């Protein structure tokens, strides 16, 4: 049995997500989300799993669940800038602007983002709340 390949549930979800993208198969997206949700118990520390799940949930307008998943991804790997930005985006879209702005400013400081530019985009946050500032 040397030529054995095993798939983690996370990877299985990725392949299902790929089927959704490549074959325009909507049911494959639901399968990917289900696979990733089930995989949380077997791969609880896999930050990528939680981020992928968040993206899938967000794609199906399950924004609050997506926020929770990306929050976990961010906490598991504090170096994940994509998770942090996604988290702040969803926070803002869910109307939690104060926390989002606070997070944006903290992230900008850590990453040495130009604060003048940041202020402009922070203002956009309030104006674009209903559509989402970062999408």
């Amino acid at each position, binding site marked *: *049995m*040397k*030529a*054995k*390949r*095993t*798939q983690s549930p996370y*990877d*299985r979800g*990725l*392949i299902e*997500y*790929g089927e959704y*993208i490549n074959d325009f198969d909507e049911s494959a997206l639901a399968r990917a989300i289900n696979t990733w949700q089930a995989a949380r118990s077997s791969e609880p520390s896999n930050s*990528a799993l939680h*981020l*992928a799940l*968040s*993206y899938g949930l*967000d794609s199906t307008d399950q924004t609050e669940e997506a926020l929770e998943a990306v929050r976990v991804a961010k906490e598991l790997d504090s170096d994940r*800038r*994509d*998770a942090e*930005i*996604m988290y*702040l*985006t969803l926070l803002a879209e869910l109307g939690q602007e104060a926390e989002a702005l606070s997070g*944006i400013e903290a992230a900008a400081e850590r990453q040495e*983002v*130009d604060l003048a*530019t*940041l202020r402009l*985009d922070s203002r956009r946050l309030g104006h674009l709340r209903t559509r989402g*500032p*970062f*999408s």
Partner: protein
Amino acid sequence: MNGFLRARNWVRSWLMDEVDRAEAAAGRHKNGPQDELDECLGLQAALGEALTWTGVPEPLRPLGPWAARLGAGDDVCRPLLFATLSEAERSELQEIVGECASAAHQWLDEFGSQALTDEAAAVMYLLLGIEDME
């Protein structure tokens, strides 16, 4: 700052890279499923030829040809191999496994924490494939 403005694009780009990685790890071929099946058939044929059933309990030996053909440990290949079965073959396989399943599980249990032999692993994966088939 672009990340703030295109958060979803950023994550999507990363996710598609992950999909490519997972597909490559799974041996998925961009050229289509036939290539994948051909590769699985080739791998399994080589594995099947290496199995020897003389050390397997006699009541389980009818499973040998089926385990050699379908008992793939590869999670990607196994369903592809099962998909090659005709309806008649499926019926025959289910009948044989129905007669041997209890003894097969008992034999597998005897390995306890010891590593399975290749033949035992092939039987285990055959049983696993049948469960998935049902």
